[in-house]
């Protein structure tokens, strides 16, 4: 069993306007559990920017208790989570919880999970998802996964971690760079660019089994994979015809079909959630800007207009938002555009932002940046008010891609 890697640290800064006060009582039995369930749930909820933890000390409760809700009203909690964790005879763990609406005095239900030790964090994240959905009406993303790349010395590793950055597991280790990981929409496969053969080549990799296969290894450079939402094909950038142009390749492999016909750079394709549109970067106007076109190819229309360097588009799952990196006075900053209006906001105060990727519920963005000269990953709300650092202890961290909702 892998130890819980203390690879990340969550630091929430900024003040949200409306944060729901919630009390998470330490789960009965969690002092003897390898994972402190209530702490994980509380950190998840606080990182969303929509919750504020309330002191829950001195109370011993579990999912079967009838809590004295007046006490929790005095502590200004609107909601209360109680539960238990028990090791079973076969070594697995039984995790149970119940959510209470303190204000209305209502039992909002509960669940139990029977999981191996390695999935205790996953069970905790699912509890956070349940609470988040019950209290906000939106699906939670705490049980999703994030892929990213680290560079330590001359060693490159592709990691798969929980959405809070913990429980990181190496999917690939290589002496050559790895960039541009991209989750398939079923959350089982990662496409990425590996330089292990001294050139950029696109692989597709099943993370649970470790099976990987070459997707694009044509003459020249092969890069920027993006899964179509139906999982049947990927858009990639190939230089096999000269220049960097967009192509579509069947996920099972095969002959690429050219999507763009320009004498300029066309790269960084991403699909809209409905699969009908591809956003991409092109310098056809003289400087890199974001364009969109029909997913089958066709006439692109320009999407970004301010600035002379706009790259790395990411479209939210609800189709409302475009996140991208814009160069502003020599600094590279994460921007968010509301697609319906074209209104743009810069949402960071850092200057080397890269690779934004939306959480599948469209409420958070993960991106890479530099803090005190070190590469770091951050999550932010779309208004930039709540940021959390997923801080690595060893090596530089980059190239995050937020995975889809997990099949339950």
């Amino acid at each position, binding site marked *: 069993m892998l130890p819980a890697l203390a690879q990340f640290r969550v630091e929430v800064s900024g003040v949200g306007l409306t944060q729901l006060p919630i009390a998470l009582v330490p789960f009965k039995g969690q002092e003897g559990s390898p994972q402190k369930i209530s702490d994980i749930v509380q950190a998840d909820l606080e990182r969303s920017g929509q919750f504020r933890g309330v002191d829950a000390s001195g109370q011993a409760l579990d999912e079967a208790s009838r809590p004295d809700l007046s006490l929790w009203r005095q502590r200004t909690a609107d909601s209360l989570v109680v539960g238990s964790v028990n090791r079973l005879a076969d070594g697995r763990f039984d995790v149970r919880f119940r959510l209470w609406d303190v204000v209305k005095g209502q039992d909002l*239900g509960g*669940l139990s999970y029977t999981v191996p030790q390695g999935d205790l964090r*996953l069970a905790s994240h699912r509890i956070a998802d349940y609470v988040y959905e019950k209290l906000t009406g939106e699906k939670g993303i705490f049980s999703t996964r994030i892929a990213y790349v680290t560079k330590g010395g001359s060693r490159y590793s592709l990691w798969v971690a929980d959405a809070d950055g913990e429980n990181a597991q190496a999917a690939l280790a290589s002496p050559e760079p790895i960039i541009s990981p991209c989750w398939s929409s079923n959350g089982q496969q990662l496409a990425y660019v590996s330089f292990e*053969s001294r050139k950029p080549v696109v692989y597709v990799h099943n993370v649970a089994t470790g099976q990987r296969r070459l997707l694009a290894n044509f003459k020249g450079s092969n890069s920027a994979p993006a899964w179509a939402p139906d999982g049947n094909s990927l858009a990639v*950038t190939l*230089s096999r015809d000269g220049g960097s142009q967009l192509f579509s390749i069947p996920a099972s492999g095969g002959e690429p079909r050219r999507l763009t016909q320009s004498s300029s750079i066309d*790269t960084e394709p991403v699909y809209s959630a409905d699969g009908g549109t591809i956003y991409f970067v092109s310098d056809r106007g003289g400087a890199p800007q974001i364009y969109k076109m029909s997913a089958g190819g066709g006439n692109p229309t320009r999407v970004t207009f301010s600035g002379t360097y706009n790259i790395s588009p990411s479209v939210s799952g609800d189709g409302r938002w475009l996140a991208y990196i814009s160069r502003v006075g020599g600094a*590279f900053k994460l921007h968010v555009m509301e697609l319906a209006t074209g209104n743009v906001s810069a949402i960071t105060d850092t200057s080397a932002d890269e690779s934004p990727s939306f959480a599948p519920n469209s409420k958070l963005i993960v991106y890479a940046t530099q803090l005190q000269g070190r590469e770091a990953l951050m999550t932010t709300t779309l208004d930039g008010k709540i940021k959390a650092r997923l801080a690595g202890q060893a090596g530089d961290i980059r190239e995050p891609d937020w995975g889809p909702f997990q099949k339950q």
Partner: protein
Amino acid sequence: MLKRTIYSLAIVALIAGCSSGTKLNETPVTDRSGTAGGQQGASTVAPVTIDPTAGTAQGPIGVERIVYFDYDSYTVKPEFQSLIDGHARFLKANPQRRVSIEGHTDERGGREYNLALGQKRSEAVRRALTLLGVSDSQIEAVSFGKEKPAVTGSGEEVWAQNRRAEIRYTR
């Protein structure tokens, strides 16, 4: 009895499909969790390790093999023409030899866009060689973008050394 009624109502109120856990009620918990795949677990990742590969073959003796570029430039400067000439002569005289031209950028900007910019540099060198009669089949132009700087650090002096295309003989 009151307790049971409250729990039953709560169960009805559960949002369908929000989680795979077993709903808590008065009946014993049964294990139908999709996450309970034995000891393996649903969040397990199988690690893969890649070993170093690809040696480099000897090119023409006494000919430099790195072409440097100006900022935001993708054209081969005249001062590198003799270097190009030397490799072109060697490749034409040795048609079984192959080169990979590896384009690089400085550290500023996005990884994928820099990969495309590095590709412009390697293709500029490829074109310079083919203009001198080298067969296209002997050349592969690729890019490392900003991933493999020759010199680490920041500032124009460092960046100038990293904006380059390296000619590497693969056989």
